[in-house]
């Protein structure tokens, strides 16, 4: 997070009471949402309520042994993040303290208190390549230079959005730290590579546009049935064990975004470690560079202080917006927004606020929609276009989607990937229920798929949806009378639908090849199942019994398409083989 300077520190106050993460102070001269330092150890906190002379503070660190009478200092500034080169490849806690720096400073694997660290390395030098020359006029968010931050990402240094702009009078080129002045304006303003932004305010943009490009995820069920747009919003609700986190990880790994911000909000420590260990070894399928080069991680695990959990999603989305301003497509994964909502509930109940539904504060819906509204495909004020896509996992208690967090989220997001415990139980992964899920971007995105993948993309998809729907209805009858009581054509439909489920919808996230499936392969595999369907029905009409058709040797090989590297030839040969073998039956 951004550092307070000595001179910023204003009037001292005194602690009046301590109860868990909520501390009240008297005689503190602070504004709402100001960052304050609490107690002798200087624990970081934020002002959340002011009543008369009493200021209520949520503290981002453990408050054991803190006692009334200890001093409280206000920084006079709201919670802000440091923005500049050095954020990619980093791993932060909920208030943007780099966890690796904390480990070093604390000299221990356990998180101590009262240690602060800047969000970006202030000492490190970066190569600044100016994009402006003396005499140029610049306005807010204009790019003044480029820093090659990682092999895949050029970091664009911009005029801060709250600047006045003006004429460039001095430009420095070469290696500088983020605190050195790289461009000077006639107003006397010095532009540095580092800027700050308060996390709870949206960074300004010109105009929000209707998204028309998909965020290709490499997951067949997502790209094929429920696509998400760049700049779109999606929710993944599901009970525990249904694969929310694996789905989020898959998106973080394979989505074709320029930048990925992954917020682990109140989740498991080991899962974050997995990300930290895995990502540096994985390659971005489009650029071939290490995935970590485009990733910024925010890890506030469930046992880290609850107030920092509340702020971590804001820290994440502010960083995402900053990259959006550079003209990048950013994807933000928040796992899980339920933990964020619970953090709000916990703080709210300590403040003894009047609770709304299920003890959540009455402002839950407002906070959720405020957050998701920060997503979008934007025309930036510097003329570039960039997007922030937000994918929020939701962990509904008992897997019950009628609870407040899921319901309030569904009112806002346009893509809904419903995870299903039954599917997970039979190890159908990703356990996304195709009957309950939806994407309102489908029509918007069809033109892209038709132009870039195949002209009959949407028709073929519709065939898959119809077949799956039909299967769903037939299954109800099968439950009552058994499969053999159905007419032959319906039995065949069930068989085709089985391959849709097993070969197409299922995808093995842990298989090196199957983990990522390009849209072309998604299309082609579906095409192979459809051509099996067509051949089979033709044979059925010609009088071949259904048992004979489904016993054809080559058909089960459809299940192996996903794991093929050289899938083009494989699919082609397989289609021919199936046609030939079915043809031999009559």
């Amino acid at each position, binding site marked *: 997070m951004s550092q307070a300077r000595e001179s910023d520190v204003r009037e001292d106050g005194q*602690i*009046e009471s*301590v*109860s*868990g993460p909520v501390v*009240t102070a008297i005689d503190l001269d602070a504004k709402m949402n100001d960052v304050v330092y609490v107690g002798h150890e200087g624990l970081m906190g934020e002002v959340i309520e002011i009543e008369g002379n009493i200021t209520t503070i949520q503290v981002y660190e*453990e*408050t*054991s*042994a*803190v*006692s*009334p*009478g*200890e001093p409280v200092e206000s920084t006079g500034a709201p919670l802000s993040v440091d923005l500049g080169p050095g954020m990619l490849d980093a*791993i932060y806690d909920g208030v943007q303290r780099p*966890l*690796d720096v*904390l*480990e070093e400073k604390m000299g221990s*694997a*356990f*998180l*101590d208190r009262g240690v602060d660290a800047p969000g970006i390395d202030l000492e490190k030098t970066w190569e600044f390549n100016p994009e402006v020359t003396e005499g140029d006029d610049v306005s807010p968010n204009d790019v003044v230079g480029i820093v090659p931050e990682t092999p895949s990402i050029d970091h664009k240094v911009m005029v801060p959005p709250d600047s006045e702009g003006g004429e460039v009078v001095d430009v420095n080129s070469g290696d500088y730290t983020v605190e050195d002045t790289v461009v000077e304006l006639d107003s006397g303003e010095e532009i540095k590579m580092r800027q700050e932004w308060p996390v709870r305010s949206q960074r300004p943009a010109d105009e929000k546009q209707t998204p028309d490009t998909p965020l290709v995820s490499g997951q067949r069920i997502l790209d094929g049935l429920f696509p998400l747009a760049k700049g779109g919003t999606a929710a993944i609700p599901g*009970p*525990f*064990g249904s694969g929310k986190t694996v789905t989020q990880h898959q998106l973080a790994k394979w989505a074709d975004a320029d930048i990925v911000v992954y917020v682990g909000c*109140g989740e*498991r*420590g*080991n899962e974050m*470690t*997995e990300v*930290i260990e895995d990502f540096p070894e994985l390659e971005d399928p489009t650029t071939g560079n290490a995935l970590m080069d485009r990733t910024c991680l925010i890890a506030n*695990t*469930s*046992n880290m202080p*609850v107030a920092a959990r509340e702020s971590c999603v804001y820290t994440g989305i502010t960083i995402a917006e900053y990259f959006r301003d550079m003209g990048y497509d950013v994807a933000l994964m928040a796992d899980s927004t339920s933990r964020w909502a*619970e953090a709000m*509930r*916990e703080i709210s*109940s300590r403040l003894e606020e009047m609770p709304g539904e*299920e*003890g959540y504060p009455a402002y839950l819906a407002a906070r959720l929609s405020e957050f998701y509204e920060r997503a979008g495909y934007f025309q930036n004020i510097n003329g570039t276009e960039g997007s922030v896509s937000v994918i929020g996992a939701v962990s509904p208690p*008992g897997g019950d989607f009628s609870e407040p967090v899921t319901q309030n989220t569904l009112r806002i997001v346009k893509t809904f990937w419903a995870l299903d415990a039954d599917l997970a*139980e*039979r*190890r159908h992964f990703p356990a996304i229920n195709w009957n309950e899920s939806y994407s309102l971007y489908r029509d918007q995105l069809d033109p892209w798929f038709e132009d870039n993948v195949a002209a009959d993309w949407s028709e073929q998809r519709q065939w898959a949806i119809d077949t799956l729907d039909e299967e769903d209805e037939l299954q109800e009858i099968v*439950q*009552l*009378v*058994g499969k*053999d009581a159905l007419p032959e054509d319906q039995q065949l439909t069930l*068989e085709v639908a089985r391959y849709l489920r*097993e070969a197409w919808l299922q995808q093995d996230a*842990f298989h090196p090849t199957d983990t990522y499936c390009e849209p072309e392969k998604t299309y082609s595999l579906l095409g192979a199942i459809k051509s099996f369907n067509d051949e089979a029905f033709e044979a059925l009409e010609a009088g071949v019994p259904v*048992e004979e058709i489904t*016993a054809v040797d080559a058909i*089960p090989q459809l*299940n192996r398409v996903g794991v093929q590297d050289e899938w083009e030839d494989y699919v082609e040969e397989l289609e021919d083989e199936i046609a030939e073998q079915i043809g031999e039956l009559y």
Partner: protein
Amino acid sequence: MQKEYQTITEISGPLVYAEVDEPVGYDEIVEIETPDGDTRRGQVLESTSDYVAIQVFEGTEGIDRSSSVRFLGGTMQMKLTEDLLGRVLSGTGEPIDGGPEIEPDEERPIVGEAINPYSREYPEEFIQTGVSAIDGMNTLVRGQKLPIFSGSGLPHSDLALQIARQATVPEEEAGEDGDGSEFAVIFGAMGITQEEANEFMDDFERTGALERSVVFMNLADDPAVERTVTPRLALTTAEYLAFEKDYHVLVILTDMTNYCEALREIGAAREEVPGRRGYPGYMYTDLAQLYERAGRIEGEEGSVTQIPILTMPGDDDTHPIPDLTGYITEGQIYVDRDLNSQGIEPPIYVLPSLSRLMDDGIGEGLTRADHADVSDQMYAAYAEGEDLRDLVNIVGREALSERDNKYLDFADDFETAFVQQGFRTNRSIDETLDLGWELLSQLPKEELNRIDEELIEQNYVEEETEAIEAEE
């Protein structure tokens, strides 16, 4: 700060409110002396400049307004030494086995600090529990937290004991040099009955497991509030043994339901706004602060693995306790009432059970190359068999195809031969997987669509007479 007050203003349930004129730290330890000369310990739950709220561990019985209150000026500490191994302690950490006082090498606050996610090492070493349903299907790895979801009257204690007795880590088995990491078990009992406690202790003593164990006992008739301390003492001890003394520590906590009841009791006494079913809104955070203390740390030999046990009220896994637990832990093992009544030992219901860390802890070099495929295939086949059972109830077995019948047989055999092994049998991972192949070989080869073809060739047990042609 040894100032004494006689300023108690209110006593309510497990809470005592007292006026103070000097600042008292949050979470600080308090001693209250009753008029009879009894000393009770407590902890500051809320501290303001003129009064404090104290949660009394040993119950507020006998405390009156003239009792004196002493603030000890520090948070609760656990006395730590390697000599704790083999000892039995009370729920507040005092020896109750008649042995000598503990001479600590070091004292640590029981509210552990969070492990920096950056410093963690991802768990991927297999722990062999000798239970097929766990090793084969829901593998436990070092540094994992894998709870047992059970119900009242089910033999979860026998399962826990079996695991405590049989658990080994491969390197220990391999008998590397004597300095290698050893295995230790920490047993934290919260609100269990004297009878259960005796059973545990008998078993521990009989099998010699006590030697490598530290036992914390909070019994059903001990004060409920004390239960909020017991798991923290156990975990502090576990962290010490793991990260100072290089042990692989397995922590068994039973029964988490009693722990949560205690949390609710304190919440209610403080008149807090309750969350679901009256449990406090911060229960997720509170539970996470316990469960997340499992793990491995980069550069450290030892590890902390947790098996918390909880009884689901009404066998309902959407109840807040199992629900919140499931969201924090890395999987869960279900103990099932139906299987238990069929006499399956241990009655583990494999379908809803899950080990999230399994994928990285198995395979070549860890367990066996075929492990993942075999377990996947058995899952799928068992799930299919389970589905068909509903149908059999309606149409009868004769109405089903031969293929369906094979799956039904598989599901039956899976329960009676694979899951069923008895609480005294210790199966190695090889035995477990070979047994898996034996069962899978009842199905036609083409049905094994989740197993690599090469592995099928190597391991499939061909039946001499049966035609392999499957009928759809």
